[in-house]
């Protein structure tokens, strides 16, 4: 299972193993990492699982889809590598990926 690092806005880090095929959102929920609210449970409808992919991993994480991009346009603290974590599926290539969680989701 790829190890993913989640970093909260205050710098607190979590290193957790997330199964391939799970989403970055699920990895956070299953490890009780605050900062991913995920009100809708991963359907890309609520925009409460915003994360910022560390730039060096952005290409591997991929680009947001159209509806995801529209939601992200309105999210607080958006950055160039912002994604909705429910839409980022874990792959083997993500071993060591770092994602940051916005203050607005606490």
């Amino acid at each position, binding site marked *: 299972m790829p190890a993913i690092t989640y970093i909260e806005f205050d710098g607190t880090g979590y290193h957790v193993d997330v199964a391939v095929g799970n989403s970055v959102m699920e990895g956070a929920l*299953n490890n009780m990492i605050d900062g991913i609210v995920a009100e809708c449970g991963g359907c890309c*409808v609520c925009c409460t699982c915003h994360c910022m992919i560390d730039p060096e991993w952005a290409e591997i994480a991929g680009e947001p889809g159209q509806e995801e991009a529209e939601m992200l346009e*309105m999210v607080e603290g958006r950055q160039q590598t912002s994604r909705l974590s429910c839409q980022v599926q874990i792959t083997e290539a993500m071993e060591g990926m770092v994602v940051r969680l916005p203050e607005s989701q606490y």
Partner: protein
Amino acid sequence: MEVDDHVVIVGASHAAVQLMISIRQQGWLGAITVISDELHMPYQRPPLSKAYLDGSVEEGRLALRAPEMYEKLDVVFKLGHTVVAIDAGTNQVTLDTGEQIGFTKLALCTGARVRQLDLPGAELGGVHYLRTMDDVKAIRHSAKKASRAVIIGGGYIGLETAASLTKLGIKVTVLETESRLLKRVASEQVSEFYKHLHEEEGVEIRLGSKVVALQGDGHVKSVICDDDTHSDADMVIIGVGVIPNTELASEAGLVVENGIVVDEFAQTSHPNIVAAGDCTFHPNSLLKKSLRLESVPNASEQAKAAAASLCGIKKAYSELPWFWSDQFDVKLQIAGISQGYTGAVVRGDADESRSFTVFYIKDQHIIAADCINRPKDFMVAKKLILQQSTIDIAVLVDESIDIKTLIN
């Protein structure tokens, strides 16, 4: 909080799971026992009528959390058991087995159950309701052998079910007693849109159709309406709303209205008992009224307030309600509660496209929005509702102006 404290949670769905996580995060040291009459570990309910029914999501993907998380939380699950009584004087619950379990705190996350129709023939094979995973398993089983389905009820559950069964290649008829679909919750434009959408996708919609009986020989064969029309059916799904599970609470002496009455801290009328989710009748300071909601975001967010109360912390719950529905290629996101609106305006083309938003207006303020394949409008609408400023309708409906500019 002490190690010999014991919280008993009745119910094991969205509210219950959030509550157990939140109390551990807030330092609850004592035992946590969850009692559920279902045999499954907690699962997501929203996909049941959508992606789980149409087969695009399998059971394994419905789990609300990974099993290891519950181990980390040190939660004891008693599945397949019904709580038959609460003794709020001696702090005990009694199970259907006669077992009594003591608690220091009790959380009622009892949810809601389907409203059943007392129809002749309702006991026939192939007749279903839709609320639980087992319900949908049975529906999926029926669907394998069915070519025609009748859905009784043109609300969101009925329509989502119609879309899912259509995807499975089944010819679907929706029977609705009212003069339009979604009459209780949506504007005429939205009702009309969904009628056309379903008809375009091959669903037959019959309005003003009150079902009086189901007929068949052991297994349902047809559905009869009060105008004496018959609709052939190999399966029937009844989706006519839900009833909150409040009986345990009222028998225990708690105050119950349209739901278990709680305050903004999810506290019931008994100091040791909280409640969260579909079963509660709760105040909302944004809406300036009390209401009961059937919604996952409500269950999760209210559960956080309930957990705080159990840990002696005051964390008021007051969020803007929101909902969503997936039907065919249309994603509807609803912000706010439209009830009481005096006008509805449309941004986009409601007649010819599958992308527009209906804003519900009251006293020149936006109180709600139905956003059809319009995720950005939804995000903006939530902000516009909360900012409660007088809205320039001309700008709101002018697509040449970025809707973001309306945010103060």
